[in-house]
């Protein structure tokens, strides 16, 4: 598959080792700064959006509200660090970092802008443009659960431990659905490199975005991402009403703050992944010039901004969902993950794989509008089926719903069979 973007790349001179090292260091510093400031501003955004959705104003005192994250940070640095007497100190200290680092690491491979043909060679706009990018992301994000589990365990507190246990069960369950939901994307891209996935989606405008060609996969990924980041409606590990604050009950000051940062960092990472895998990455919709040579610095900047906007939208979506849906019950969470998401994802893989195969036999390769259009049509049908057939008391078991009549008849028949069983030989 030769796309214009890659043809251009092959033509540009590769950067020398010196340039590569300097560029990587600069990217790391710039990126880390933007990321940390962004995470800090997200805490403000969360508070503002929460407030607006509740018809309030939100923080507006410290520098008209803009300095609120700085004030919060300052407060947390000044506060006393407390250690529970029975906590296991080394793990208790290291757990917050373990929660935060994977979220940060996953970012290294996500391309956040079009490559830049600088005078010193082409510079990729990802800190580490790995060819196995997506596998790296899957591997690293699964580590995130350790921070939470270890925090829960080392606190020596029953609520913390329960939070940690819940978190591990939840993450393991949804990790599978998440991995399965991304397989259609990989099938469409034919590669695990995130750059390839982005350029494949840019092929025929927004029609070839994976959200159009693999809608159900996106929905499953979305739900799994909410569970993976412990955000409402899946915030069972910290369920305030049941577990006080779950795994971080015993944490104070900056260590607590680290968990907070980790949560938002995870949110940003999940949003970025969603944008990359399903919403065309840094592709600017309805235009083709951003994917074509020459790759000027301006293009890099603009595509970067678009990527940022997409991330921001998903972060907002996280908050939007938070103030819309109440927390799941534990059994609902498990049955949703195992009984619904996993089978749906597996079915969908088969469906998309056969559709791709069928289209290729029919002579429509990927990166043609017929290919994307046919898949989009398939997805419309799938979404309608999901909304009006599957979504009938089967998605989330409600507090109570009537038993299915057939099921009820079966249960009754079984019970009747038990009571009227003929006496056994011994009894006679």
């Amino acid at each position, binding site marked *: 598959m030769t796309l214009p973007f890659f043809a251009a790349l092959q033509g540009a001179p590769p950067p020398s080792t010196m340039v590569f090292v300097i560029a990587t260091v600069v990217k790391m510093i710039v990126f880390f700064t933007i990321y940390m400031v962004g995470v800090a501003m997200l805490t403000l955004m969360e508070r503002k959006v929460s407030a607006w959705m509740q018809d309030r104003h939100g923080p507006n005192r410290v520098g008209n509200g803009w300095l609120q994250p700085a004030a919060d940070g300052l407060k947390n640095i000044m506060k006393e660090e407390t250690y529970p007497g029975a906590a296991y100190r080394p793990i208790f200290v290291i757990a917050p970092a373990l929660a935060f680092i994977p979220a940060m690491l996953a970012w290294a491979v996500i391309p956040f802008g079009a490559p830049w043909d600088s005078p010193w060679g082409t510079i990729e706009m990802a800190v580490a443009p790995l060819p196995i990018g997506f596998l790296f992301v899957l591997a690293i994000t699964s580590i995130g659960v350790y921070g939470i589990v270890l925090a829960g365990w080392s606190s020596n507190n029953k609520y913390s431990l329960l939070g940690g246990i819940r978190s591990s069960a939840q993450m393991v369950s949804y990790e599978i659905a998440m991995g399965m939901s991304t397989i259609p994307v990989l099938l469409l891209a034919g590669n695990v490199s995130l750059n390839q996935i982005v350029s494949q989606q840019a092929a025929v405008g927004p029609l070839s975005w994976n959200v159009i060609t693999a809608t159900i996969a996106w929905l499953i990924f979305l739900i799994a991402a909410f569970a993976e980041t412990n955000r409402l409606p899946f915030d069972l590990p910290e369920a305030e009403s049941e577990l006080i604050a779950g795994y971080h009950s015993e944490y104070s000051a900056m260590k607590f703050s680290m968990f907070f940062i980790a949560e938002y960092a995870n949110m940003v990472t999940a949003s970025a992944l969603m944008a990359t895998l399903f919403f065309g990455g840094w592709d600017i919709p309805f235009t083709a010039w951003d994917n074509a040579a020459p790759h000027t610095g301006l293009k890099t900047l603009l595509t970067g901004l678009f990527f940022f906007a997409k991330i921001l939208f998903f972060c907002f979506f996280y908050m939007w969902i938070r103030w819309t849906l109440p927390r799941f019950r534990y059994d609902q969470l498990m049955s949703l993950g195992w009984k619904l998401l996993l089978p749906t994802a597996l079915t969908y893989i088969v469906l998309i794989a056969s559709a791709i195969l069928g289209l290729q036999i029919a002579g429509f390769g990927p990166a043609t509008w017929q290919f994307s259009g046919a898949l989009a049509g398939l997805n419309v049908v799938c979404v309608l089926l999901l909304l009006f057939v599957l979504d009938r008391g089967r998605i989330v078991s409600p*507090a109570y719903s009537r038993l299915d009549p057939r099921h009820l008849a079966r249960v009754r028949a079984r019970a009747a069979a038990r009571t009227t069983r003929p006496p056994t030989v011994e009894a006679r």
Partner: protein
Amino acid sequence: MAIGVKVMERPLEDTSYLRATLTGLSHTLKHLFQEKVTVQYPEEKWSLSPRWRGTHRMLTTEDGKAKCVACGLCPSICPANCIKLVPGEDEQGNRYPLVFEIDEFRCIFCGYCQEVCPEEAIHVGRHYENSEYSREGFVYDLERLMAQTHPVCEMWDPTDPKGE
């Protein structure tokens, strides 16, 4: 099924999660743009009811003396026992308070003192911003009660229950 859970007998066809979620999302989005109801307190304040019972105030006569005649009715009726009154008498035999102190911390702001006062001297007022740095600051003496300037509470009139 836990005990005492309300059971909703819904037909299976009406049960939905995704569609209901979409409806919910539209509701929260609507609220995002709605007018905010918060009162920005120190800058804007809400108007108090004319029957608001807050910080006390002692009214004075034209010549600047307290109207109080130290009859002792208010300390007797006070359910919180927060009024301290030591009566005194001048040469003409007029009674006046030597000491009149109200502990605003003990006060429950029932307004009985105002209702019982025969001289319409002690009043509860339409005022609530009385923070202090020490507990002692909340014991208002006669001078301080007389120095208050806020409007006083209009007591409930049984003949005009709605205050018209």
